[in-house]
């Protein structure tokens, strides 16, 4: 079956969300991945939104992480401190982030381009809840297109922490131990993080994607897994569910 990049990334991401775990998501592709996971293999995946929505039966894609869909027929309509403190207590397993730039340690910039904070060349929204989720959830994932401007050696601003400067840096900074970036799912490959160096390590390349294309689209040196595989493409069941139930109006999958 044919599929586009966005459909592939959402399907791959959804498979990492285990049943009976908790994920905090935003709008867009991460929300689609969580909804798909619930409908496929993880029916008891608990979805939370940072403004307070807990365990909704999502009728459709929220347009804001605080709109009424985020607690539609939910288990609880709580508050931002409730969700953020649940993260800080160590109960939230997964989260998803996005950003304009990412470095080899998974540090993310969603604040600004330029070198003067007082007069940025381009200003983006900033952290929102991203820094909090990257700091406090156990495993952070990213769904993002891959190009050398985005995957860059030095990002202009570390909005949200990855492994900062490498092994031990998160703990030294005071961040909760054993937390940090987990997977980066791009239009070209799935990237994990090397145990020793905490640097990005490609785990699987997508069907039809040459290694060189991945290298050309990355602004730093990638590590490669010894057991590098080909990413398992979306199944017809996943695609059917994604297209008919999760995102029938193609708000997300139509963006590819």
């Amino acid at each position, binding site marked *: 079956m044919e599929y586009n990049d966005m459909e592939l990334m959402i399907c791959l991401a959804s498979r990492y969300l285990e049943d009976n775990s908790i994920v905090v998501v935003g*709008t*867009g592709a991460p929300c689609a991945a969580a909804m798909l996971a619930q409908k496929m293999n993880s029916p008891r995946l608990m979805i939370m939104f*940072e*403004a*307070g*929505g807990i365990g909704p039966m999502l*009728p*459709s894609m929220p*347009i*804001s*992480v*605080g*709109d*009424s*869909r*985020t*607690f*539609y027929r939910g288990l609880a*309509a*709580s*508050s*931002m*401190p409730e969700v*953020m403190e649940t*993260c*800080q207590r160590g109960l939230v397993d997964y989260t998803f982030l996005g950003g304009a730039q990412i470095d080899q340690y998974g*540090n993310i910039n969603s*604040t600004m381009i330029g070198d003067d*904070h*007082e*007069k*940025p*060349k*381009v*200003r*983006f*929204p*900033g*952290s*929102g*809840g*991203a*820094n*909090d989720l990257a*700091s*406090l959830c156990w495993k952070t994932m990213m769904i993002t297109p891959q190009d050398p401007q985005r995957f860059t050696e030095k990002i202009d*601003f*570390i*909005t*949200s*922490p990855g492994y*900062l400067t490498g092994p031990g*840096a*998160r703990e*030294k*900074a*005071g*961040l*909760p131990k054993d937390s940090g970036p987990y997977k980066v799912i791009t239009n070209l490959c799935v990237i994990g993080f090397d145990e020793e160096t905490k640097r990005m390590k490609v785990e699987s390349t997508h069907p039809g994607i040459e290694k060189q294309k991945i290298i050309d689209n990355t602004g730093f040196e990638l590590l490669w897994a010894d057991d590098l595989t080909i990413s398992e493409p979306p199944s017809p069941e996943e695609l059917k569910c994604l297209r008919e139930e999760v995102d029938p109006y193609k708000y997300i999958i139509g963006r590819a």
Partner: protein
Amino acid sequence: MENFSKYKEERTVTYKPTGTGKLYTDPDAEKAREYFRDKKPRKMVEKASTVEKVVKEMIHDGDYIGIGGFGANRTPVSVLHEMLRQGKKNLGLAGHTATHDFQILVAGNCINRCDSAYIVGLEARGLSKIARKAVESGAVELCEHTNASLTWRYKAAAMGLSFMPVRCMLGTDTEKHSNAVEMECPFTGAKYLAVPALYPDVGIIHVHRADVYGNCQIDGIMIADQDLARAAKRLIITTERFVPNEYIRRDPSKTVIPYYLVDAVIEVPFGGYPGNMAYEYFSDEEHLKAWLKAEKDPDEFKEFLQRHIYGVKNFNEYLDTIGGMSRLQELRIQENLIEK
């Protein structure tokens, strides 16, 4: 029984002000106590007012304000519009997922400083050109924060304290451009970030129902409003509808903001428009899109603001400009038939 006496050893605790950002509000809990003692109403009296009057009398140029809701969800839009009409200037803002609210205040050149967690964007709807320009030009000075850190700054204030230790922002440029201080836990020695309590001069919150004394009930998520209501020195409430006091007493478990926190309460039907008001009406995506589009051309935007804000007397007249009751009814249907 495990012995935890190791946590009570004498130690020197260090504090390191790692954030270069400014403090825009006073975190002093003693001063806050004095203010609350002297200025907050203990007596349950009628506080019904009008938007024009509260903006005139309770919001002063230079004040620091906190806005309830979440960007374009349960946002007190009527008060923001009136601030533009009255030409409020040099305000500070807690940018706790500030989306359409930030956009409105920037359109009126009302703010010049902001504790920013989320600004200049409207989530999935895209970025606001005028809001970006206001920040990129330096017209609005920023102190970086995060949604959790601002929430917890409100919470510290709501608790009557001067700071809160948190575990976010650590190790990042967000920390470097915040006004936080690195510290050690006096018991465990763990590294924490101390964020200063945030006591805004004015809090503005839109709720589902309130009585004339200011006892308020909110349906759906609270976001950070239970703490903002307690942290604010002056608190303005707009409510979808007034209810009799006996209605509040019928289910006191729903009362999240009791009267003694509130300084004024105004009935503003559809007061969260064009945002989403849970169980009442969905956001008007067409109107929000029209805002973003109009911003791209200065002349068109001037005309847009004239049509919807400066050229109307009040919020009811604004609602007439967007299609009045017919449009609002569509949004109500959309909210309540949410499956569509």
